[in-house]
Each structure stands twice: as structure tokens, then as C-alpha cells.
């Protein structure tokens, strides 16, 4: 009888779990809570930029007024996709003028570019940035070569995006700092408490009636200390 019972209970268990799963998918099929897809190029939703994270690395843009044509970005580039030409203290018609510097050509070959951000990091004037633009489809290879002086000039929208991005980064850095400080403080406190608790425990080791509640009081702090350690590891990695 018990064999039959297990047989039947197996069947009911399986059918129950199938019904639960099918009900779940049915509810999502007829009334999904939200649609996560954003149609490509959709005008219906807010501007595409808002959907792109602040640290997204898209097509570069250049603050031409700031650039001093130092070639550091081109040197830093691991795939050699940046090319620039121009003169310092010279006179060049039709160029873009920065600090007595005139740039006549600033080209990024996006066919080669790996969007690694290594050109933006060493820039002494902080004038080249990774932008939000991600739509790189082109009919020919030559269309993939962007002249940053003309094809993608600096706009007020870019300035806003850049400011927002910097704010975001600053906020993130502050949060990280605060978290780190909190973790350090918590660790210190835990260590202090542990140090305080240990001698007590040693003292009361002789009296077993009161020793029981002591570890309970210490445990949460010890746990907190462990978790902050893990957090710190995450931050470092």
C-alpha cells in the first residue's frame, strides 16, 4: 500500500508543481507587469540617452577649445586608431583654436576602436570623452572613420551629459568612500568590542551560568565585521 501511496503522491506532486509553473507563465503571458524591451530607435519613449548608463563608452567627443594637440591620447591608444594634425603657435586657416594651438585634423577610426577609455584617462586637459552614441552602423568602412572636429562636434547636450556623468562619478566615489569609512569604523568597533568581550569571557569562564548569553551579544557584531570585510573585498576587486 505504501508503494502505491508514494506512486500516487509522486504524480500529484509533479502535477501540482507543473500547475504552479504554468499558472505563473500564464499570468505573465496575459498581463505582463512590465515590458523590458525598448524598441530600437523608438521615439515613443524618452530620449535614448536616458536609457544609457552614465559610464557607457560610446563614440568619442572632443572639446576642441581645450585640446592642446599633445598626442598623448594617440600614443595611449592600444590599436592606434587616433590620428591628429595641427600646429602649435602657428597660423592655420580653418583650424580649431585652443591654447595657441590650431588643430586641422582629429580623426578616430571607429572600425579599429575598441572603446577602452584609455585615450580619455591620460588627457591632461580632460577634453576627450567617451560619449553616449552607440549607433555605429555604416554602409562603407570609410563611413566608420569619424572626424571629431566636424562629424561629432561638442554640443550643449554633450556638456550636460558630461556634467551629469561627472556628478554621478563623484557621487559614486563619495558613496564608496563613505562605505569604506563605515566598514572601517564597524570593523574597529567590532574589534574593540571583541577585545572588550574576550577578557570578560575569560573572567566569567569560571562562572558557567552567566557565560551562556555572552556569545549571543557578541555574534551580531562579529557577523557585521565579516560582511564589511566582504564588502571591502568587492570594492577592491
Amino acid at each position, binding site marked *: 500500500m505504501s508503494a502505491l501511496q508514494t506512486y500516487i503522491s509522486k504524480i500529484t506532486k509533479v502535477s501540482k508543481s507543473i*500547475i*504552479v509553473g504554468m*499558472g505563473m507563465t500564464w499570468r505573465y*503571458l496575459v498581463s*505582463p*507587469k*512590465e515590458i*523590458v524591451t525598448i524598441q530600437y530607435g523608438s521615439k515613443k519613449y524618452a530620449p535614448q540617452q536616458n536609457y544609457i*548608463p552614465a559610464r557607457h563608452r560610446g563614440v568619442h567627443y572632443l572639446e576642441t577649445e581645450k585640446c592642446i594637440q599633445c598626442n598623448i591620447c594617440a600614443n595611449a591608444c592600444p590599436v592606434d586608431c587616433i590620428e591628429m594634425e595641427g600646429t602649435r603657435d602657428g597660423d592655420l586657416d580653418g583650424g580649431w583654436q585652443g591654447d595657441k594651438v590650431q588643430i586641422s585634423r582629429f580623426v578616430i577610426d571607429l572600425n579599429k576602436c575598441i572603446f577602452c577609455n584609455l585615450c580619455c584617462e591620460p588627457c591632461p586637459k580632460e577634453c576627450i570623452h567617451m560619449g553616449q552614441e552607440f549607433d555605429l552602423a555604416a554602409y562603407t568602412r570609410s563611413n566608420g572613420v569619424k572626424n571629431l572636429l566636424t562629424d561629432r562636434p561638442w554640443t550643449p547636450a554633450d556638456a550636460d551629459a558630461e556634467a551629469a556623468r561627472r556628478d554621478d562619478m563623484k557621487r559614486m566615489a563619495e558613496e564608496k568612500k563613505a562605505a569604506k569609512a563605515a566598514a572601517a569604523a564597524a570593523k574597529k568597533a567590532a574589534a574593540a568590542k571583541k577585545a572588550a568581550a574576550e577578557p570578560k569571557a575569560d573572567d566569567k569562564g569560571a562562572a558557567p551560568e552567566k557565560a551562556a548569553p555572552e556569545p549571543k551579544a557578541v555574534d551580531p557584531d562579529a557577523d557585521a565585521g565579516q560582511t564589511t570585510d566582504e564588502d571591502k573585498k568587492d570594492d577592491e576587486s
Partner: protein
Amino acid sequence: MPYTIVNHALEYFGLEQGGIWSFIGAVSVWALPITGFVSLVGLVSIWLERKISAHIQCRVGPMEVGPHGLLQTLADGIKLLGKEDLVPKNADRPLFALAPMLVFASTFVSFACLPFSEHAIIADLNIGIFFIAAVGSLEVIGVVMAGWASNNKWSLFGAIRAATQVVSYEIPLSLTLLAGILCAGSMSLIDVTQAQGGWIWSWFIFRNPFMWIMFLIYFISSLAECQRAPFDLPEAESELVSGFHTEYSGMRFAIFFLAEYGKMYIVTALGVVLFFGGWYTGIKPIDEIGGIAGNLIGAGVMVTKSFLLVCVQMWIRWTLPRIRLDQMMALCLKFLLPISLGGLMLVAIWQGLMPDFKLFGIAMIAAMVFAFMQMRRIYRNVTNASKTRIVLPTMKV
């Protein structure tokens, strides 16, 4: 033998029936529309599959080509047509070329005795159900051939799994088919359907309580027959790349794909004929219209019912995970086989004692209507899980 359209045409032209003209007429008249219908079924089911999977996963699916992506499958088909026909260097060339044809042929031939309505049937064989079961299981030869000829161990694994699965699930499938044959007293698909004419409670599914179990077993084994999830072990993407058709590309792959979706339609249409009254709507006055209008309504009803079941297959595919090989065999041999044997016996006893007992069907439909009205509460009682709703991680806006 009921008149088919070919026979009508032959009669019209004054040609003898059953001779060489019958053969030529049947091939020339019917091969093209069946090909068209199989392709259409493939197009619609692939689109449905993508849409259903998308909506279950909170996506929207194909949206760009045509309204709501309706023509996406057509675009994909054109892309596959234009692709290079690659054959691996060490493949067994003739077998490699033959395999997709064989798989498609088994699907294609099954359409020959699948009824759409009373007169819209190509060949009303008196062993129609047996024919479909026999020809349908020929598919496994093509699958094994594809796996062997690819000269790829993963493909061969997939083919062996397919052989194991299809051959073992053939048994419960045939036993459940026998239940329908028992109720009708005939193997002809037309006769089986006509035995279910009249009001809705004369459908075989409402004939006795065991037919529901038989239908469930039929549905499970038919999923295994056409290698759909959760029985998609032969083409398990995460284990075997895509099983027996890993090495196939371009149009040969498209033919495999088309055969799979055609097979899904055949299996569900057979289920509809055996359990859900075929082309009958279940409302007597509509079913008695007859003529061209009646046949058209019947064909529409038949295709609609089949596609509803196809949708259930897809719903299952996007809900349940793939089962293991040993679980698959255990399900077949320990559960489906004994239960279907017992069910067949009980159906036979019921059929012998009270073949025309309609009251049960009426009571069952009343119970179903009541259950449908109380669906939400019953579901809550069964699961106690209606309040646990998965919260998805939202995108930053």
C-alpha cells in the same frame, strides 16, 4: 469510400478512378497545396512561438518586419535560402543529403490522411490513424541518419537520444490512440470524427472520465514524439549544441525546422480528431450545415483547435525545464505506460457497459464551466502561491 475532391475532379473529367490518373491527379493536385500548407503552418507557428516566448519573458518579440513582426519568419526563410550549403569534410555525403528529406517526407506524407473537414481530405484510408502513427515514427530514421552522417559525436548523441525517446514514447502514444479507436470502432479519421458529431458532449473527451487521462498521456507522449520541450533532449542546446542538426545549415536546416513545426501540427490535429471532435464545433445546427460553407467552417474550426493545442505546447515549452534522460525513460516506463494500459482497459469496460451514456458528458461540461468560473479560487487553493510574484530587476530610467 467518401468522395474526395480528386475523385470529384476525376469524375468531372470522365476519367477512371483508382488508376494511373488517380495517382497523377493526386500528386499534381495535392503535393503543391500540402507544401504550401506545411510552409504556412511553419511560418505561423514559428511566429507564434517567438511571440509567446517573448510575452512570457516580458519582452515583445519580433516587431520590425511587418505588423508585429508577422513577416519576420519569411525574412528568416529568405535569409536561409540565400545561405551557402555547407557539408562537413568528413560527412557521409549521400546520407547527409538524404536525412532532411526523409524527416520532411515523414511529416509531409502524414498530411495525406489528415482531415480538414468532412470532404477536405486527400486520402481517407481505413487505417488512417495507424498510417499516421507508422509514417510519423519513420522520422526517427532520418534523425539517426542525420546524426550519423554528420560525423560529429554530439550529433550522434542527439540522434541516439532521439531514437531512444521516440521509440519508447511510441508505446503510450499508440495505447492512447487505441482508446479513441475503441470509442469510434474505426481507424479511419473520418469515421472517428463522425462518431463525435452532434452536441459538444458527444466528443470523445467527454465520453468517459478516463479519456481525460488518456488525452493527457497522449499530449505528453506527443510532446516527446516531436521532440519538444521538456522532451527536447535530442536537440538540447546547452548540452549538444543543437543535437542532430548541428552540422546543417541553410535550406537543409530550414527543412528540419519546417518538419519539426509540421510535426507539431500533425500531432495536435490527430489529438483534435481523436479527442476534441475534429472539425465539429460542438453546436449541432452549425455542424449540420454541410456543403461548401459547412466544409469551410469545419476546416477553420479544425485548424483553430489544432493551433490552440500548438499554443499549449509552446506554453509548456517556455515553462518547464528540460528533463534528464533517466527521468524521461522513468516517466515513460513507470508512469505513462502502466497508466495508459489501465486507462485503455477502463475505457474498454465503459464502452462495453454503456456506450451511449451521454449524461456523464453533460455533467462533466457543467463541472468544467463551474470550474472555469471558479478558476482563480481553485488555482489559489491548489497552489497557495498566488501572492508570490517574481519581481523583475528593472532597467534604470
